[in-house]
């Protein structure tokens, strides 16, 4: 099962310059593995040595930050989308 993963500008060099890539998986961890298979080295950009999503990376499934769901175990529905964003200063300030 393939899901779309949106890649932010800063990470596109790691993903052949693409803004959206496809990956297989029913959980976020499986999707990350799928990304690693197609774009070697990409998982290390997103996940630290302890298997946690890196501090300056925000990952959203169904528009919700997975830190508040089940982290890498968060299910990714068949029609779902994974959005990866760098942490930056917000607006409204």
């Amino acid at each position: 099962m393939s899901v779309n993963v949106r890649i932010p500008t800063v990470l596109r060099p790691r993903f052949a310059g693409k803004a959206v890539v496809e990956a297989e998986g029913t959980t976020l961890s499986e999707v990350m593995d799928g990304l690693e298979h197609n774009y070697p080295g990409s998982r290390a950009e997103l996940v630290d040595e302890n298997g946690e999503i890196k501090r300056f990376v925000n990952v959203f499934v169904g528009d919700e930050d997975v830190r508040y769901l089940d982290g890498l175990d968060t299910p990714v529905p068949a029609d779902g989308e994974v959005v990866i964003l760098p942490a930056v200063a917000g607006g409204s300030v």
Partner: protein
Amino acid sequence: MPRLSPKPGVRLLGKLEWYNPTGSVKDRPARWMLDAAERDGLLEPGARILEPSSGNTGIALARLSRLRGYDFTVVIPDNVSDERKALLRAYGATIVESPGELGSNGAIEVAREKAEREGHVLLFQYANPANPISHYETTGPEILSGAGSVDVFVAGLGTGGTLMGVGRYLKERLPDVKIVAAEPPSGESVMGLRSLEDGYHPPIFDPDAIDGKVLVGTEASVRGTRRLMDEEGLFAGLSSGAILHAGLRWAERMDEGTVVLLLCDGGWKYLSTGAWEGTVDEAVARLSGTSFW
């Protein structure tokens, strides 16, 4: 906001922050930060204050600086709405523009360099504890007093000041309350980041102190803002539309309870963006490349 509530058992309440003196929630942290700086002896009469802001904090600080005799300079991304720049000038602020494509990160960088080089006092809302304290001492008590009970509180994520201050106040009294952030997708295309390690976390924001974060894009923000106008007659700013979107996401999962949305400013400062004119797609296209949070 009963017309917007998805279920009869869910009370959806809006805290309308445009009744503050300069029309936004930022009058609160602006006053608290200035008071703290004065108490700490950081501000001599005629002191020069500098602050990075995408608008509302700058406008609030400009007003108070004029009243208290300080010289105020704001660093804003050059793609904010014309009304914000006009208001800043009306209150007597000096405007320094930072590259819009760098977002708030760019404004912070320019402000830090300029403050260090020229000796301005940088109140720096992203790291100033008086910012969340203002919400702990005012916004939080007002919400609990007005609502009576709160199950979910939703606010936008900028500095994190509102979420941290209101969140702490409510959690101390209502341990089961959920604090939810609505976040703009500003990191998607922000230029100038060389790697993820160039990212930024506002020092006052503790991600572990909230319970959920919903990503809200421009289209959902516009739709939410129009629903506030069409269904409740509320003329709110664009981030309020995003907060409605995030709040409804949580409200739809509840059978009963109270959801409080912090609507941080009114729509006046966004009229020139055309957010209320034509189709949603047309409005989204007009807003592309602008900073409206």
